[in-house]
């Protein structure tokens, strides 16, 4: 049923009259400032949207919140019962340093934790590996053993605060440290809530942190799906991430399309690994960017929910409504932060975060204003958390569910972004799936092209960035932020801790655990997760566990595109 059809003819007539009598005389007196208006993604936007733009939209496509197709949100009361989880991404230096930051954020009203690891950890190297030199504790916290993980979460009630870990190629190993650490504290795994990012596909596409090639890496992912389906009912086994795809330069439509197509790939691999879709789909979660273009971002989140519902019901025949409901975390766009006049970033972050909230995010991170310069200081992290609290408490946007639902513009943008995503799905399906598309460099090339076109638009002055290509200032009259410095002693102390661990543990037991892991990895029917937990219990290090699988799984070499 089309609610708008009856009125459309008269609206068309009225619009023609408006154009003749009102618009044209104004355009003559005051021409518009640009020939074409576009979003941050360079998508053209019309002067005005009217009911005619929704002539083909059924009311059912918009629907009610908490009901399929979930365009208006997965919860019938929106944020009226409970606002989103305020989950600031944090991590630097040693496990001790980051544990202090976690406690500081919780003391100031943060409601969930999110862990940023350093690059050696993200790449599966021990802190004392030659490749780790200069990188330990720099862009996150260094974690190389179960002991480090115990220090990281010391004193934090893991059965009460949900914990997110941004880790991908060595996700299973870090998860094993986490589970072994919880076990030693006597916390039952089934009581723990949280999220493992565990999204390897977007690594090949965008973030570029990998160890093994895509296919064996997908086996590690499906092993975690199986393990969580059996043992961790409150844990999100994956956070399927568009954030990094967008940061790498994609458009909003590409972020939406590649992320959801990655989601489809994970579901297909899970089913192929012998799982029933409803055994693991309810614990799939998503992670999107919150970029500058306000309405395009809101439309992106709304489209994502509607597409996922259709994918899960039509493509996969999922029966459990929880499998149909897309839950997502959002983070403001790091790439949009400027080094120039950095205090301005507070405003950017606030507006981006507002878009995520109007789009119905379940969980949110706001960037620190100093993050184009370094990891955030305590002050910058606190302002970012306060930004979320201001949106929740002061703006009134939480009073009603999906406040922009029914906006001609937002509904039309939602429809268009959805259509662009389906078009990409068709292309990727034709290539044989996302793993094959990655082999062919398809999403990588699409993203690079968009990044280049955006840079050209900025340099031609078609896109303005305040403080960068317009409104410039000499020096920094808005104030120079203090920068978080990571002490070089972190690397030395962390290496010493690891060497002590290797000297004091039962080395024969550690070797037996590694041998068992290797035997299990060779047999595709064996789940690697319990074997990795045994390695963590035996105090094997991250590097040892990752290295053990290299001869079996191989190592990924990025083709040049």
């Amino acid at each position: 049923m089309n609610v708008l059809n009856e009125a459309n003819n008269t609206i068309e007539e009225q619009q023609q009259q408006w154009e003749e009598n009102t618009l044209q005389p104004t355009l003559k007196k005051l021409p518009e400032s640009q020939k074409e208006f576009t979003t941050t993604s360079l998508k053209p936007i019309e002067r005005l949207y009217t009911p005619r733009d929704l002539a083909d939209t059924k009311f059912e496509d918009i629907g009610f919140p908490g009901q399929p197709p979930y365009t208006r949100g997965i919860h019938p009361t929106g944020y009226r019962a409970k606002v989103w989880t305020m989950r600031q991404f944090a991590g630097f230096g040693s496990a001790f340093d980051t544990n202090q930051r976690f406690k500081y954020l919780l003391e100031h009203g943060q409601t969930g934790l999110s862990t940023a690891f350093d690059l050696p950890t993200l790449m599966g190297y021990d802190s004392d590996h030659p490749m780790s030199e200069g990188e330990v504790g720099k862009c996150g916290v260094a974690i190389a053993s179960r002991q480090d993980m115990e220090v990281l979460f010391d004193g934090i009630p893991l059965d009460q605060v949900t914990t997110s870990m941004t880790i991908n190629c060595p996700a299973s190993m870090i998860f094993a440290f986490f589970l072994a650490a919880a076990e030693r504290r006597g916390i039952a795994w089934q009581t723990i809530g949280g999220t493992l990012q565990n999204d390897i596909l977007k690594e090949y596409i965008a973030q570029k942190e990998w160890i093994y090639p895509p296919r064996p890496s997908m086996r590690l992912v499906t092993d975690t799906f199986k393990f969580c389906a059996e043992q961790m009912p409150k844990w999100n086994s994956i956070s399927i991430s568009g954030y990094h795809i967008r940061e790498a330069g994609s458009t909003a439509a590409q972020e939406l399309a590649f992320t959801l197509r990655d989601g489809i790939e994970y579901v297909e691999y899970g089913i192929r690994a012998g799982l029933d879709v409803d055994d693991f789909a309810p614990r799939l979660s998503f992670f999107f960017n919150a970029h500058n273009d306000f309405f395009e971002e809101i439309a992106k989140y709304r489209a994502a929910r509607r597409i996922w519902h259709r994918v899960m019901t039509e493509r996969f025949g999922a029966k459990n409504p929880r499998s149909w409901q897309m839950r997502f975390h959002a983070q403001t766009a790091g790439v949009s932060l400027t080094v120039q006049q950095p205090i301005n970033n507070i405003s950017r972050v606030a507006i981006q975060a507002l878009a995520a909230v109007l789009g119905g995010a379940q969980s949110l991170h706001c960037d620190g204003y100093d993050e184009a310069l370094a990891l955030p200081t305590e002050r910058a992290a606190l302002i970012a958390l306060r930004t979320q609290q201001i949106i929740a408490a002061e703006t009134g946007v939480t009073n009603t569910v999906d406040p922009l639902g029914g906006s001609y513009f937002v509904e039309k943008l939602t429809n268009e972004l959805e259509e662009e995503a389906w078009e990409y799905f068709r292309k990727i399906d034709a290539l044989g799936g996302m793993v094959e598309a990655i082999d062919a460099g398809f999403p990588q090339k699409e993203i690079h092209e968009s990044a280049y076109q955006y840079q050209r638009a900025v340099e031609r002055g078609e896109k303005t960035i305040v403080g960068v290509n317009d409104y410039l200032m000499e020096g920094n009259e808005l104030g120079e932020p203090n920068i978080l410095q990571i002490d070089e002693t972190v690397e030395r102390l962390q290496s010493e801790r690891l060497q002590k661990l290797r000297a004091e543990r039962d080395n024969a037991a550690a070797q037996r655990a590694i041998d068992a892991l290797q035997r299990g990895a060779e047999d595709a029917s064996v789940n690697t997760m319990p074997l990795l937990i045994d390695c963590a219990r035996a105090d094997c290090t991250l590097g040892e566990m990752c290295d053990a699988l290299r001869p079996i799984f191989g190592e990924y070499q990025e083709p040049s595109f």
Partner: protein
Amino acid sequence: MAEPKIRVLLAKPGLDGHDRGVKVIARALRDAGMEVIYTGLRQTPEMIVNAAVQEDVQIVGLSILSGAHMTIFPRVAELMKERGLDDVLLFGGGIIPDDDIPKLKEKGVSEVFLPGASTEDIIQFIQANVKARE
């Protein structure tokens, strides 16, 4: 006879995988008529300097966003000196605090570009500072 193209090596040292910037710059330098060799990710300083020697480049550009620049940039500069690449210009870019820039320049990095730098600035810098080949 056409002037020979300026030969540039762009490299991603360290563990950092952020390659949006370096790839945009590679394409912009090519569009400006330069010969660009991009090393790909996770190059050690030794690998980068070897590539610079083998490819006989006039410029080496390093991109790093992980915070490891104070360890890695000076090492590349040092190795370049050891290998006699005195006439090769070294520049860098990435997330680099202001206070580190003079220290890097002291150690042989001729220019540091921060986020927001335009590809045009980088092209002009190269054209103005490249040492001509006989």
